[in-house]
């Protein structure tokens, strides 16, 4: 018992370190990548190719003055970044990076866990918006909830066909199923598209990044945050991106499974697929606009949810009729 | 052409006209100014392009232009070409406003676009427009003193400083160039406060 706990703790620690490292470098990738889309160079001054830029950024951010707005609700103002950070980090625990044992917590209902974690992470966002005691963050917070109401149902509905086909809520087993039968992106292309669009909203990336729309809300919910608290939000926000991409790779692209009969190396293949989605999101970020939040909600309820429901019914019919299960 | 129409109207009403550089200036009397403006609007001058305030305080005597009062507000009316039957006529009615009673009627009810420019004239010349919906200072801070585009408002240029206390005072430098003053003279005192080295 104690031994297993210890192993889990070590795994979690390694994962957290890896994620924080990934976070640090995803800022670099994000900035360099966006810069390349925009025919410029991006950060290249600190270290070779600007590789030390994340460290410089972190040092700078931490030594900035920590400001608390006079109108702020002190307790929640302090709690909000912590919540956002924690839940964003927690979601990764059930994503398998390799066969048996290469996962921090092999929960039998891992999909539900991820779902719960991503929902609870919203608390951090809108509490920040509310606790800042300022109008721009408040509007950012309201928009984030409005978005949540929009995408969460479509997101859930899009996972259901996958769960139904794999017959399990365990992510590891979903990957194993895909290893045997082929990837879900083949069987479940509509579900994949719906899930991808909805998870863009969940990661609050373009075109659904209105909760922190810089142009009108300055920075949305974290306008009034500075120093380490801001860093916590920044990490949380990018962790959503990291976790979201890893999750979609796991659910629809076979996770850690090596494609095309290539040798199986833990972590590597998930990383490759993950990077694919990171790039895809970046690419969309560089190419598209931001929707208005009411349009996004209308789209989610009017297009995504009905489509997901119809597709779910089709899949259910197929499974019940004795297809694969 | 509406321009000819306006000219005929002015001749009929006895409004002084002046044509120069192809521009038709009409000098409206202050008392009936709004009536004439309304007539122009009905004539089809649907667009108010500008409201221009001028302070003729030290306008030199002896030119062909005579200015009965200190202030003038010049309106630029256009019959907008490309909109309905607009033909592109432009007229420049003006009204002289005495220094003692610097107020005149607002034309915002005829042309809503007069809102900002009338506020600007109010701000920079201190001419009050009666009937303006929102007459506040627009370009200057609300607590600013004076009306800077009046000719008696000081310019407030700061001297340019050079080494060893040399400086150029713009106003006297300008005057010196025109032989009105001795030009490059004056104070040659030490350094600015707090300056090192």
């Amino acid at each position: 018992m104690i031994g297993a706990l210890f192993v889990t703790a070590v795994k979690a620690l390694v994962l957290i370190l890896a994620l924080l490292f990934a976070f640090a470098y995803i800022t670099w990738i994000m900035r360099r990548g966006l810069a390349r889309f925009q025919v410029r160079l991006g950060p290249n001054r600190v270290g070779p190719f600007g590789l030390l830029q994340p460290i410089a950024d972190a040092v700078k951010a931490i030594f900035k003055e920590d400001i608390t707005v006079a109108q702020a609700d002190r307790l929640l103002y302090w709690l909000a970044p912590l919540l956002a950070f924690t839940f964003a980090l927690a979601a990764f625990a059930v994503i398998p990076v390799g066969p048996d044992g290469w996962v921090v917590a092999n929960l039998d209902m891992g999909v539900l866990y991820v779902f719960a974690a991503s929902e609870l992470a919203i608390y951090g966002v809108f509490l920040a918006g509310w606790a800042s005691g300022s109008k721009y963050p408040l509007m950012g917070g309201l928009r984030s909830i409005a978005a949540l109401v929009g995408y969460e149902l479509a997101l859930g509905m899009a996972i259901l066909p996958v769960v139904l086909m794999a017959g399990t809520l365990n992510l590891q087993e979903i990957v194993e199923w895909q290893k045997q039968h082929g990837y879900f992106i083949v069987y479940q292309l509509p579900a994949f598209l719906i899930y991808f669009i909805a998870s863009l909203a969940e990661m609050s990336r373009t075109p659904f990044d209105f909760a922190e729309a810089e142009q009108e809300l300055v920075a949305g919910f974290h306008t009034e945050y500075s120093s380490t608290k801001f860093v916590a939000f920044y990490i949380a926000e990018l962790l959503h991106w990291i976790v979201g991409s890893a999750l979609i790779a796991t659910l629809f692209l076979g996770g850690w499974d090596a494609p095309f009969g290539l040798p199986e190396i833990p972590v590597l293949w998930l990383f490759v697929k993950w990077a694919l989605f990171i790039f895809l999101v970046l690419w969309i970020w560089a190419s598209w606009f931001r929707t208005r939040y009411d349009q996004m909600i209308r789209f989610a309820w009017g297009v995504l949810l009905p489509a997901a429901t119809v597709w779910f019914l089709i899949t259910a019919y197929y499974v019940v009729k004795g297809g694969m299960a | 052409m509406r321009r000819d129409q306006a000219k005929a109207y002015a001749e009929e009403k006895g409004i002084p006209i002046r044509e120069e550089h192809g521009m038709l200036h009409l000098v409206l009397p202050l008392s009936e100014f709004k009536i004439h403006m309304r007539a122009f609007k009905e004539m089809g001058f649907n667009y108010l392009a500008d409201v221009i305030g001028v302070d003729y305080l030290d306008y030199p005597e002896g030119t062909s232009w005579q200015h009965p009062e200190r202030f003038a507000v010049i309106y630029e009316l256009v019959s907008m070409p490309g909109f309905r039957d607009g033909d592109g006529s432009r007229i420049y009615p003006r009204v002289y406003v005495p220094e003692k009673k610097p107020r005149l009627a607002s034309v915002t009810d005829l042309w809503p676009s007069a809102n900002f420019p009338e506020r600007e004239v109010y701000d920079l010349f201190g001419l009050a427009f009666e009937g303006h919906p929102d007459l506040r200072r627009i370009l200057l801070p609300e607590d600013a003193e004076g009306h800077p585009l009046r000719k008696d408002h000081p310019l407030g240029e700061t001297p340019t400083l050079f080494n060893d206390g040399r400086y150029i005072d713009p106003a006297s430098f300008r005057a010196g160039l025109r032989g009105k003053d001795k030009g490059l003279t004056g104070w040659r005192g030490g350094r600015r406060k707090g300056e090192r080295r």
Partner: protein
Amino acid sequence: MSLVDLFLGALLLLTGFLAVRLKNAVHAALALAANFILVGVVYFLLEARFLGWIQIIVYAGAIMVLFVFVIMLLYAARAEVGADPLPGLKPLAAAVGVVGFLALAYAFAGVKAPLAAKAASAALSGGTAEALGPVIWQTWLYAVLLVAALLLVATVAAVTILRPGEGGRR
């Protein structure tokens, strides 16, 4: 009854108490959200794991978020200000609460569990989705359908109540 149970019970009571006592509506809502998450955790301990997740996702993730959204939307955080028109209601409410608790406690005290803990646990098989599924879709099928219909009606009702362009700007 283990230490964990005691701890969770105490936390549940504390958050519940805060939820009905805190002046600031957002704080109260947060306390309630914490209470709901704790209830979800208790469900895990009581061999109802699927229910635990659903509790967290629906109650803490959706319902409380809606509450907080409405509070923020209406700027109603500091709702209970001004003089209380019915000042005598608070002690009465407390009394009703105490009496209710005593009555329920008395009723529960008389309950005797028919099964041994082990057997009950085996019957529940952890309360996973697989275990729960047949029950829902067989025993309670009509109830599920009714609830589904109710959900649909509720959605329609909510949308209708807030339909734009009726009796106001929106």
